[in-house]
């Protein structure tokens, strides 16, 4: 084990049911203080990997060590103690719809600290200022745009100054301006907090601009990893197809099917 790694995964395999493995023999080390991107098309197992890092799922085999704690077999108080050192941004923010923006950001502070209201107020306003939404503290989640909701959720995720921040598809369904704001915030907040960030996404071009290290996954395996510059120039067919957005390549355009001619001939025979 290296002290510099925030997340260390060794020979990890996982399946939701025994017949269909989702992750095969994954080994990966995520150094502290870095922003790491995990890329891959939908269904490749990247969100499952994020869930295992967050302790929501247990690996079938192999180990996952997060912030120095082994997550295998971890539950109850020990898991919650580990999660207090993490923050997570969900795909659509997952803000509590029955609370205002202010109360959403104050939620982790109220649940986990005995700080007086005045201090909580100052902390909440500082976090909202960091995402540019101090003026929106009285609004409800229903009054926010998608990008604003994502920023409030980000302020809530960093409320307890986490050492590890997990991002599950943070750019989904955002306009280009909100997209750029969230990307810049992820980088800036990571550096300001001295945290480690893990971004699971398929928005490869934008991610390459902000990450320190990139991991490409397909069908539950890591196919390539390295610095963004190396990935941009990679000759690995999958990386090349993904980075340049080609419709056909190692990931085929067509879903597996019998030969086209044979299939049409069956129809003709019935006719």
């Amino acid at each position: 084990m290296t002290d510099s790694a925030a997340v260390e995964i060794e020979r990890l395999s996982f399946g939701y049911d025994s017949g269909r493995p989702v992750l095969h023999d994954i080994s990966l080390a995520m150094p502290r203080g870095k922003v790491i991107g995990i890329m891959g098309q939908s269904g490749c197992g990247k969100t499952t990997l994020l869930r295992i890092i967050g302790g929501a799922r247990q690996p079938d085999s192999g180990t996952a060590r997060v912030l120095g704690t082994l997550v295998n077999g971890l539950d109850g108080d020990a898991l919650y103690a580990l999660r207090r050192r993490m923050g997570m941004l969900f795909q659509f923010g997952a803000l509590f719809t029955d609370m205002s923006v202010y109360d959403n950001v104050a939620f982790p502070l109220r649940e986990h600290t005995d700080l007086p209201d005045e201090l909580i107020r100052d902390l909440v306003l500082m976090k909202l200022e960091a995402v540019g939404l101090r003026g929106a503290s009285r609004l409800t989640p229903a009054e926010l745009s998608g990008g604003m909701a994502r920023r409030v959720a980000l302020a809530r995720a960093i409320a307890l100054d986490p050492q590890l921040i997990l991002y599950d598809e943070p750019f989904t369904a955002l306009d280009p301006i909100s997209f750029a704001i969230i990307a810049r915030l992820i980088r800036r907040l990571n550096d300001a907090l001295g945290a480690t960030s893990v971004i699971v996404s398929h928005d490869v071009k934008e991610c390459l601009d902000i990450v320190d290290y990139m991991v490409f996954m397909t069908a539950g395996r890591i196919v390539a990893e390295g610095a963004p510059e190396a990935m941009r120039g990679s000759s690995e067919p999958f990386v090349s197809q993904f980075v340049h957005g080609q419709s056909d390549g190692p990931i085929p355009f067509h879903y597996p099917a019998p030969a086209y001619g044979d299939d049409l001939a069956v129809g003709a025979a019935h006719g």
Partner: protein
Amino acid sequence: MAEGGRTGGVAPLLERLGGAVTARIWRLGFASRFFGYMLLHSGTALRRFQLTIREIYFAGVQSLIIILVSGLFVGMVLGLQGYDTLQRYGSSEALGILVALSLVRELGPVVAGLLFASRAGSAITAEIGLMKATEQIAAMEMMAVDPIARVVAPRFWAGVISMPLLAAMFSAMGIFGGYLVGVKLIGVDEGAFWSQMQASVDVREDILNGVIKSIVFGVAVTWIAVFEGYDAQPTAEGVSSATTRTVVTSSLAILALDFVLTALMFTGGNAR
């Protein structure tokens, strides 16, 4: 050949039947474990009682209108029907007893329970189900906050506290409805109406038993509502069918429990 085909048809049918029964037993076991876990993690709901009070407002206070209006109409109907029957035997002054006993023993807890299941139970299921579908429950877990302690238990205790109060208000309103129709409209003697009621309604045998019933119904309805919400498939269709299941299951539970409780409470008393 045909025989073989028939056997082939019966086996999968039995298999499906067995599968459905086993699945239901599993679900009942899961619901029981959920109930136990919820009781064990009720500390937050009771220590930070403002969380429960907030839910009492949503489940209890917001159900008041439907409970009070229904209670009034049920009492008025009891007044009309009761008078019609009693006057045939020349005992129309016993109307007060009939109205009060029907409401306090049976109609108060049962009808208020059914209304509570459709008004508050369905809302609790839909709210928790939607929180799950929009990942709010998962977000809470990732923030190291137990959603059963923070979201489910306060709603459960709010339901258990609200239900007997709503049933009592339903009965009180019903008695007032019976009074309006019997005394003010039909002209039954007011003194006889109240004094006979006062003499015949026993605090322990009638009122306390009614309160016990309403507490049991409150536990049943709210348990079903929170469990269905927490167990809902996180999709629009999943939340909608969970809400329907809450209303159907808790209505049946109320009626079945009412029979069991009535058998235990009142038959024994009459036998003596």
